[in-house]
């Protein structure tokens, strides 16, 4: 069982996000999570980083996005940190649509929904200009967590 912490820092540039994705996926595979689980966790972290770049930093390059990864025997936690515009608090997102109503299929807003579906804990905090989105996946899962 591997354990440890690592901090990744990228510029607020969408073309750099893949570096975080690769790292997250590789770490997850080493835990080991399955290929599908590792991919889904990678998606969650990438979504969080994308949201930071687009919304916290308004797609402006030149800012730091930090991803802290903390792995122990029971969980892996990702903290995605920025010093941009804080996210507004909201309800847990849903993704409801009629599969026969093509005109109204959602094209966006799926990132937070995916995070809540895949991760066991999702929380957000903002203090003294620093915003942190924390995503936790339990490694020992009970039957209700799937």
């Amino acid at each position: 069982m591997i354990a440890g912490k690592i901090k990744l820092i990228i510029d607020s540039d969408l073309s750099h996000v893949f570096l975080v994705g690769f790292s997250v996926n590789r770490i997850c595979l080493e835990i080991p999570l399955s290929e599908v689980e590792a991919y889904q966790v990678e998606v969650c972290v990438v979504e969080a980083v994308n949201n930071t770049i687009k919304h916290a930093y308004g797609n402006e390059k030149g800012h730091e996005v930090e991803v802290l990864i903390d792995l122990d025997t029971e969980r892996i936690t990702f903290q995605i940190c920025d010093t941009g515009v804080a996210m507004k608090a909201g309800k847990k997102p849903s993704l409801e649509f009629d599969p026969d109503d093509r005109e109204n299929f959602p094209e966006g807003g799926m990132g937070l929904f995916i995070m809540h579906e895949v991760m066991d804990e999702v929380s957000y905090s903002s203090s003294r200009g620093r915003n942190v989105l924390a995503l936790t996946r339990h490694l020992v899962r009970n039957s209700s967590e799937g």
Partner: protein
Amino acid sequence: MRLEIKKLGRVTVVRSLESRMDAKVAVDFKMEISRIVEDDNRWIVFDVKDIVFIDSSGLGAIVSSLKMLGDEGDLVIAGAGETVLSLFKLTRMDRVFQMFPTEKEAVESLAG
């Protein structure tokens, strides 16, 4: 976004040559599909067999492309691997798109 595009009868096959379909390339994909649809190509197979990573931006771009077709035409998915397929299922987009294991089967379904 690097794509290979070929026409088989009335069907246009668009194959991704990128392994990642994310926020960086999503807009390019939409623009490319927009050009294809403007040329009156309304039966599209999107072959994703070489894509190992897609996020909601990529998925949103595919949805947007389907919506460009309106009531005439269809966009179907071919070759989705287990990981990519899991995202379609997680977001229930597997109820929106017809998914085929191979390009050949997808083309046959749209050939008319």
